[in-house]
């Protein structure tokens, strides 16, 4: 597969995952603001901005409606839903011949939807509904991808992009929430904190899954354990890294003239860390540093993917 094509598929996938994540975070944050107590609107907003990777925050202008409208529709803001969907579609357009017509049509519909007056009207009447329609569009695209695309290298790059983006986003989210919520305290089971914790789980669509594993008894250490180490839940970091590892192995198996040793080692190490570390060890040590380390390793894996598959030097390729 052409390196440029792999690059576009990978980014198409990452952008969509990001749009989904932003939509959900915004929806949950706005929901939490309905309840009194806890952090104020601006604090919540800035925490969400940090979870979206905006370390300097997004300037709060006092109007939640205006702020959220921008975060959905401002096509110049790299965090916005529209920006991400534009990015995904632009990447898909450049590899139009590699994806199925069904996938393209699905993505195109989502693109035209978010640019339509209809989406604006939906936003005015119910932000939540509007965001749900975006997330639905993305789910449909993923389903279409899995059922209509050949499960070859291209599909694996899509998976790789999806899982790395999601692992990174979940790790960022936990790192941002960590100081406020994840320091165990006595009154955590009731009151405002309960809602905050449920909100955190909802940001990863994981409240119901969490309840199935731990019952509705919400506690910070269990949440951390679930979102870090669970091997069966698709938004847990361990699950994502396992998926990314499988994708890299499949890419390697299907072409594989050059063994990307460092990449295999990198993803393997991160995977082992997530499988063999216990929540007790994490909490006993510096859990903030632990989360930060996971993010750093995700970034490193991204760089290695580029070095091996996309931006390699001609000399290194001819030498084989």
């Amino acid at each position, binding site marked *: 597969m052409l*390196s440029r094509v*792999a690059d576009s598929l990978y980014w198409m996938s990452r952008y969509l995952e990001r749009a989904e994540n932003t939509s959900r975070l915004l929806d949950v944050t706005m929901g939490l603001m309905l309840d009194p107590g806890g952090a104020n609107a601006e604090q919540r907003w800035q925490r969400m901005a940090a979870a979206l990777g905006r370390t300097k925050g997004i300037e709060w202008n006092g109007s939640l409606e205006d702020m959220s409208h921008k975060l959905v529709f401002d096509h110049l803001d790299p965090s916005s839903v529209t920006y991400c969907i534009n990015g995904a579609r632009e990447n898909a*357009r450049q*590899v139009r011949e590699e994806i199925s017509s069904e996938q*393209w*049509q699905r993505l*195109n*519909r989502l693109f035209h939807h978010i640019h339509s007056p209809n989406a604006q009207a939906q936003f005015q009447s119910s932000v939540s509904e509007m965001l749900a329609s975006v997330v639905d569009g993305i789910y449909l695209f993923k389903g279409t991808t899995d059922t209509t695309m050949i499960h070859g290298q291209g599909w694996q790059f899509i998976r790789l992009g999806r899982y790395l983006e999601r692992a990174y986003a979940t790790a960022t989210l936990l790192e941002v929430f960590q100081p406020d919520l994840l320091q165990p305290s006595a009154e955590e089971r009731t009151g405002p904190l309960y809602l905050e914790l449920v909100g955190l789980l909802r940001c990863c669509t994981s409240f119901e899954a969490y309840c199935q594993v731990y019952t509705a008894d919400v506690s910070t250490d269990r949440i951390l354990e679930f979102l870090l180490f669970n091997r069966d839940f698709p938004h847990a970091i361990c699950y994502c890294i396992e998926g990314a590892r499988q994708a890299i192995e499949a890419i390697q198996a299907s072409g594989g003239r050059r063994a990307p040793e460092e990449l295999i080692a990198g993803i393997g190490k991160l995977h082992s860390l997530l499988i063999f570390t216990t929540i007790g060890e994490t909490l006993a040590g510096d859990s903030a540093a632990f989360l930060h380390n996971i993010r750093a390793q995700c970034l490193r894996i991204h760089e290695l993917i580029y070095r091996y598959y996309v931006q390699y030097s001609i000399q290194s*390729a001819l030498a084989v």
Partner: protein
Amino acid sequence: MTAGHPVELEPLFGDYPLDQAYDEMREPAGEVREQYRALAETLAALPADELRRRKQSVDLAFLTQGITFTVYGREEGTERIFPYDLLPRLITAREWECIERGLTQRITALNLFLRDVYSDAKILNDKVVPRDLVYSCKHYRRQMRGLQVPRNVYIAVVGSDLLRLNTGEFVVLEDNLRVPSGVSYMLTNRRVMKRTFPQLFSSYGVRPIEHYPQLLLSTLRSLAPEGRPEPNIVLLTPGVFNSAYFEHTYLARQMGIDLVEGRDLVTHDNIVYMRTTDGLKRVDVIYRRVDDDFSDPLVFRSDSALGCPGLFNAYRAGNVTVSNAFGTGLADDKAVYAYVPKMIRYYLNEDPILPNVETFLLSEEKDRQHVLANLDKLVIKAVGESGGYGMLIGPKSTARQREDFARQIEANPRNYIAQPTLDFSRAPCLVEDRLEPRHVDLRPYVLFGDKINIVPGGLTRVALEKGSLVVNSSQGGGSKDTWVLE
């Protein structure tokens, strides 16, 4: 109309005008031509707004499928759906037979001309085509002199533009030997028509065109360099900003080949490679949709980043086939065009089956005086342009525009030709629930590998604006499906 099938066409046609131009659907007296009767009956039987409803569903399908083209020179909404008319244009078996023979003859002669000019130049020595004309052509590539191209095929893909005059006869307007586009619209139009008028389609017995991508692939394969039995064939596109990008992706997907951009290619030791996730992979045949000028910055325009440095040397070494060959634009020059009938006689010793449009060469003193005196009646074209750019349509021009062109002609007469303003044929199009005639041309697609293949049909382009003579998609043209009947 025959007595047995009375059809009430009044509401559909209304005050549909008929004049001296050939109407594809109706005889001069107003009767529907025989081959169009079944279509007319189907249309008359549909409820008034049914056609409009079907049209809307087609438009929506085009939008969600992203069947679009890009318009240059506009910032907003540069991506547009290709305007499309719902009524098919019909061509009878007899008409098609003539077109097919005529194009085969013409393309054979043009290919021989290119080979000759880039090797022994006999036709120039024999003074059949003036030497000055060839060597002053903007698209002549001296780098091609003496270079052996695979199977001596210079023009593997051609899309000639034909017009029908008021005599009912087809003539060739231009040959498009560089990178003709539009074939994807021919294919998608057909898919849409089969869905929109299934019964009508099957009752007509239309010859299929769907195998075009497969034919194109085998044409390209037949041109692979020697000793490459499993050639790696790619389509080279200028990229996502090109107006025909949709078509490039469409063809690559239909053929199952990689769509590459210049930045995907590297050359090493005169071999072209593409960068893949598995390392470098050798490229054997390039179906090129990038103009000569932008193909290789080392040989052609050095400021271009669209091509691949070193491509031409690899081509010269015979390690990669590039189709169409470089320098084929020479025979596309509108002044060289005037000599095609002479080429056919010179190389094939035959009379041309498809005539040319009468053409005045402004480099000729006598022609020039005539043209300058009659600018308001003629069409003036720059010889090296395409896509409807660089044109003056005399009867529709202002005095100021004519003065402008006259000055440009005096300054550089070699750069212009003139042709009579052709009242070419019109076909009915759906305009607000009614039928109105619009000018149409026909672009059949010719493939030249082992032998010449022409899929029956082509792209019928429509000048959608009332009275307009310009059918180019970049200037408000649309298209129709073309049905060649059994």
